[in-house]
């Protein structure tokens, strides 16, 4: 592709100063993410996958190197509201209804009132939550709450969706279903998605590109381009030979990156 990458990192470094001395969280990260890519970051804890995502979101500031998001600096991109961020926990406001929660970013970004309701309805149907707008978060299951938080990140027209282990706290059956829905949603909206996970099948099933990371210092070990077809994939693609081969490569990459030490 000749287009400018949506996310471009060159020699990115981040060192945290802690009481036990400096911690090298990210070391010499080079990565391009093209528009419309679904990129998974996988690795053991401490490999910096979440930290890198937070750098893209300008929630952390790198101590060295270059990072461009949508052709801007990460901080400018944050101020331009270029991305939606989904956290590990849904983090819905208990005092707002589901619709009220989805409306939160719209209120802050100053969308006209007339437009808000239409947008809320649209994204709630995208995540399969029609008719739940008037419910309060505690009335929904964990999976539905997480879907509502995805709807909240989709409500405004950010082209990038950053997801930090969004399904990590859910059981496997719910996770499968949400993975399938996420792929449909991704192909329907043509967004660029950065997705942090520590599940190999999840990473392989979802991604067009899998970034295998290794710890201490956090760095990219290998970038695996998926040969699986783009767009919605059936769940049973996970039993195919091709899928298993990619999963094997990811596991080998993790092993070579010392993910299985200790």
């Amino acid at each position, binding site marked *: 592709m000749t287009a400018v990458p949506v996310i471009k990192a060159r020699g990115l470094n981040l060192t945290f100063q802690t009481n036990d001395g400096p911690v090298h969280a990210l070391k010499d990260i080079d990565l391009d993410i093209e528009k419309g890519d679904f990129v998974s970051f996988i690795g053991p804890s401490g490999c910096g996958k979440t930290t890198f995502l937070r750098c893209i*979101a300008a*929630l952390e500031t790198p101590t060295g190197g270059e990072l461009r998001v949508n052709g801007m600096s990460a901080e400018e991109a*944050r*101020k331009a*509201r270029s*991305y*939606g*961020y989904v*956290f*590990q*926990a849904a*983090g819905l*406001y*208990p*005092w*707002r*209804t589901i619709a009220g929660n989805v409306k*939160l*970013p719209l*209120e*802050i*970004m100053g969308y006209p009132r007339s437009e808000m309701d239409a947008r809320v309805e649209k994204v709630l149907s995208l995540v399969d939550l029609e008719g739940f707008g008037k419910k*309060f978060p*505690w009335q929904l299951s964990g999976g539905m709450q997480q879907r509502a938080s995805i709807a909240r990140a989709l409500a405004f027209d950010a082209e990038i969706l950053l997801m930090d282990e969004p399904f990590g706290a859910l059981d496997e059956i719910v996770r499968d279903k949400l993975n399938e829905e996420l792929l449909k949603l991704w192909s329907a909206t043509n967004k660029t998605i950065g997705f942090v996970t520590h599940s190999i099948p999840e990473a392989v099933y979802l991604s067009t590109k899998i970034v295998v990371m290794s710890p201490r210092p956090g760095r990219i070990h290998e970038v695996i381009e998926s040969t699986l077809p783009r767009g919605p994939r059936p769940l049973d693609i996970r039993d195919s030979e091709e899928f298993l081969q990619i999963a094997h490569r990811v596991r080998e990459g993790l092993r070579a990156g010392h993910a299985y030490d200790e």
Partner: protein
Amino acid sequence: MKMVAPVLTVLAAIIVLWYGATVWLNSQWTYDQAARAGQEVSFSEVVVDTMNQKRPVLPAPHQVAVGLWEGVAGQKITSKRSLVYHGWITLSATLAGFALGTGLGILLAVGITHSRAMDLSVMPWAIASQTIPILAIAPMVIVVLASLGITGLLPKAIIAAYLSFFPVLVGMVKGLRAPDHMQLDLLKTYNASKGETFWKLRLPSSMPYLFASLKVGVAASLVGTIVAELPAGATRGLGARLLSGSYYGQTVQIWSALFAAAALAAILVVVVGIIEQITLKRMGMVR
């Protein structure tokens, strides 16, 4: 209904103990009177006498009940002997002080959560203010304000506010800091301003903390008002009623005023509790 039996049992036990204490504490006076008159008294005569003295050391429960009833229902409510009249004087100062204290507590809490300088400078003083006995401060405030020509409700309200701002301050600081990193990060991804973070996240998060503090604050406010009514010859209010009772040895009057104050405190706390229920329910925070 399951709740009623234990509550009544405890109440009955308290009344029995109280009657026992009445006999024990008041019998000395009966024996002294009898000795002075050169008479012998039987135990049953002692018991009867201790229940019906005019100025007992400890009035019997029924004497307090009669005193309360006469104070509340037996007088015109404008009478100086009416507990409703005195209760209203105390209540109005309590509510004024509560409003003042709550407002001050919330304002300081907002300042403390938004400014590190205020956090470091205001909090120690707020804590220090509560270590000074209110009984020492109250007369000075009353006297100073009286010399400026300010009397009546305001000085009492200021002392009530002095006691009630603190729980509100502590509760609100905790409440405004309740949102975790994730929730603050989320608003950061929306590039929300400090004001939006306050109105949309911090303030709603602090509501349960605020109401817990308000319950403590309203009771403290009542205590402050009553203490403020004790010095400087106040003639109106439950505190004044307590004081004049002790001047003239009218123990029944003291105990009646005491119970009136306790009832008032209970009502205030319950009212705050009801407002809490309604507010949190409307916010969807009560299941």
